[in-house]
């Protein structure tokens, strides 16, 4: 047996590697160092994420690739990596008091979270189907555990179980798709698949097309596209709220990054006509998500359906494709991350002790008892609804504008129509919080001001406003994004 040595260059992999190493350090520090209060582990984790962010920024513009072009650190991947790192850091800040109130173990939680961050970034950097799958599993497994992390809560356990089973189901489809593509093209590297697909015999091979279809299924499951969205409401509702926040933004960013890369690099639109299928999925997702969200009374469930609808909006950008679609998607993902984190952060801040306030009735009058949390949620929800001058408006404008420019006017019209429908359910909680008398059982004053939580929420809200008022910088950045 002859060994071919891989081309080892760890530098482009650092954004994924550092969180992984940090995860191991946190695990070791948790068990080896004495002391009962382990809060400083969070600081260690944040330092790791900061270091990863530093190297991510340093890598910008270099367009390095490694491991025989199975890892590509282009600007698009790095932009997504920054979004994921930011979401990870925010999630840690959201979690500290949440975990303490429920007496859950911080060390394990942080290690799992960092592992998931590492897998997500690996997925964003991957230019090879096997590496994409590796990243996908690397972030999915910790998330299954994290969903069930509140062990004494039935809903949390149920969420973890459902996510695990359905996630395995979809992973099987994804892997099967990789196998079929390998069978048809003799390659797993996206660039090589693209080269092989330029031959008409390959491109019309049903095995090849079926492989592509199964990739759509696998990605569709992770980003929450209808009709693969079934797990989302149940899992989002049951999982601990910070984890729901993390899943809703970071999973979407990572899976969409790979989704974009796979379909823009491996299946050029001239070879496989996938635009129509994806446009259809976008329409179904937007409609199912928005219409189903209308009747929800639990905010986590409502935001889950909203996340399905948002997956549909982002998919429009993929249908548009090209530079315009790519930069629109990157901007949208960044905007969605900050505003969704703001909304979930506000929701976490509404809780007291291990009691959460999640339904519309429980949130009534929150503006009087928790004015800051209510304000944060109100701004984030307005942004999600697409009100100017918040980030969500610019993001939607950018995506729909790209669709109109590319000739997909009908898709943009359906998108606009859908976002008008969505206004109703985004405003409903605001009305409840600001226009109703307080619900029963609000304690007069919180026992301790949750500083970390407040920092995360305030930063998210400020970014939501800043990206709406001054989107220029972020847009320039998004436009520099490209797939190598």
């Amino acid at each position, binding site marked *: 047996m002859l060994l071919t040595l891989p081309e080892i260059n760890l530098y482009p992999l650092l954004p994924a590697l550092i969180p992984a190493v940090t995860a191991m350090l946190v695990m*070791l520090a948790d068990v080896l160092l004495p002391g009962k209060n382990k809060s400083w582990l969070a600081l260690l984790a944040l330092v790791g994420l900061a270091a990863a962010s530093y190297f991510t920024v340093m890598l910008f513009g270099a367009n390095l690739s490694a491991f025989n072009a199975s890892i590509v650190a282009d600007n698009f991947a790095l932009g997504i990596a920054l979004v994921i790192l930011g979401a990870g850091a925010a999630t840690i800040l959201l979690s500290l008091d949440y975990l303490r109130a429920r007496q859950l173990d911080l060390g394990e939680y942080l290690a799992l979270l960092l592992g998931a961050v590492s897998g997500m970034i690996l997925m964003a950097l991957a230019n090879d189907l096997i590496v994409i799958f590796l990243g996908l599993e690397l972030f999915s497994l910790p998330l299954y555990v994290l969903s069930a992390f509140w062990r004494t809560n039935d809903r949390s356990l149920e969420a973890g179980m459902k996510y695990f089973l359905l996630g395995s189901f979809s992973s099987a489809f994804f892997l099967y798709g990789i196998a079929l593509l390998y069978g048809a093209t003799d390659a797993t590297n996206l660039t090589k698949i693209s080269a092989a697909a330029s031959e008409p015999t390959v491109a019309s091979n049903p095995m090849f097309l079926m492989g592509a279809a199964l990739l759509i299924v696998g990605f569709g499951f992770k980003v929450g596209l209808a009709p693969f969205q079934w797990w989302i409401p149940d899992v989002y509702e049951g999982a601990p709220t910070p984890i729901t926040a993390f899943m809703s933004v970071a999973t979407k960013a990572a899976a969409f990054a790979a989704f974009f890369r796979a379909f823009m690099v491996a299946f050029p639109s001239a070879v496989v006509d996938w635009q129509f299928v994806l446009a259809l999925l976008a329409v179904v997702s937007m409609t199912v998500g928005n219409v189903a969200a209308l009747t929800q009374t639990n905010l986590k469930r409502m935001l889950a359906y909203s996340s399905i609808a948002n997956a549909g909006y982002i998919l429009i950008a993929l249908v548009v494709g090209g530079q315009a679609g790519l930069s629109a998607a990157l901007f949208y993902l960044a905007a969605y991350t900050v505003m969704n984190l703001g909304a979930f952060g506000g929701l976490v801040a509404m809780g007291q002790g291990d009691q959460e306030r999640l339904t519309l009735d429980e949130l009534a009058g929150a503006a009087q008892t928790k004015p800051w949390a209510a304000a944060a949620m109100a701004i984030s929800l307005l942004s999600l609804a697409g009100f100017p001058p918040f980030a969500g408006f610019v993001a939607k404008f950018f995506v729909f504008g790209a669709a109109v420019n590319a000739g997909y006017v009908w898709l943009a019209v359906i998108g606009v129509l859908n976002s008008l429908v969505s206004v109703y359910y985004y405003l409903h909680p605001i009305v409840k919080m600001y226009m109703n008398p307080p619900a029963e059982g609000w304690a007069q004053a919180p026992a301790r001001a949750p500083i970390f939580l407040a920092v995360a929420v305030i930063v998210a809200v400020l970014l939501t406003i800043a990206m709406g008022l001054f989107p220029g910088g972020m847009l320039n950045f998004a436009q520099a994004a490209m797939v190598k």
Partner: protein
Amino acid sequence: MSGDYFPLFVMLVVSVAFAAIGVGVSALLGPRRPTAIKGQTYESGMPSIGTARRRVWVRYYLVAVVFILFDIEIIFFYPWAVVFRQAPIFLLVEMLAFVTILLVGYIYVWRKGGFDWY
């Protein structure tokens, strides 16, 4: 391309045939004189008590999972050993990294009390 996999196919046939022949030949040639004692699950072991379909202490699963985890990692050493001479330094570093990661898991399980029976 398919030629590369021919040895694999031969191995598959041989292993299936080996198992089939072993079971088949003993069934064909062996004398059968069943008694009640011979019919027991563990002929020369402890007499079984109660039903096997009962709950087992959860720690048993933990130990089993940890065992399988490390056991399977060991398998990785075999292909590594086969090609080791082709690039000794490089492969040594690679394996050290691999073992280090395993070690972190080991330490974690140990400190968390995963090996304590009680």
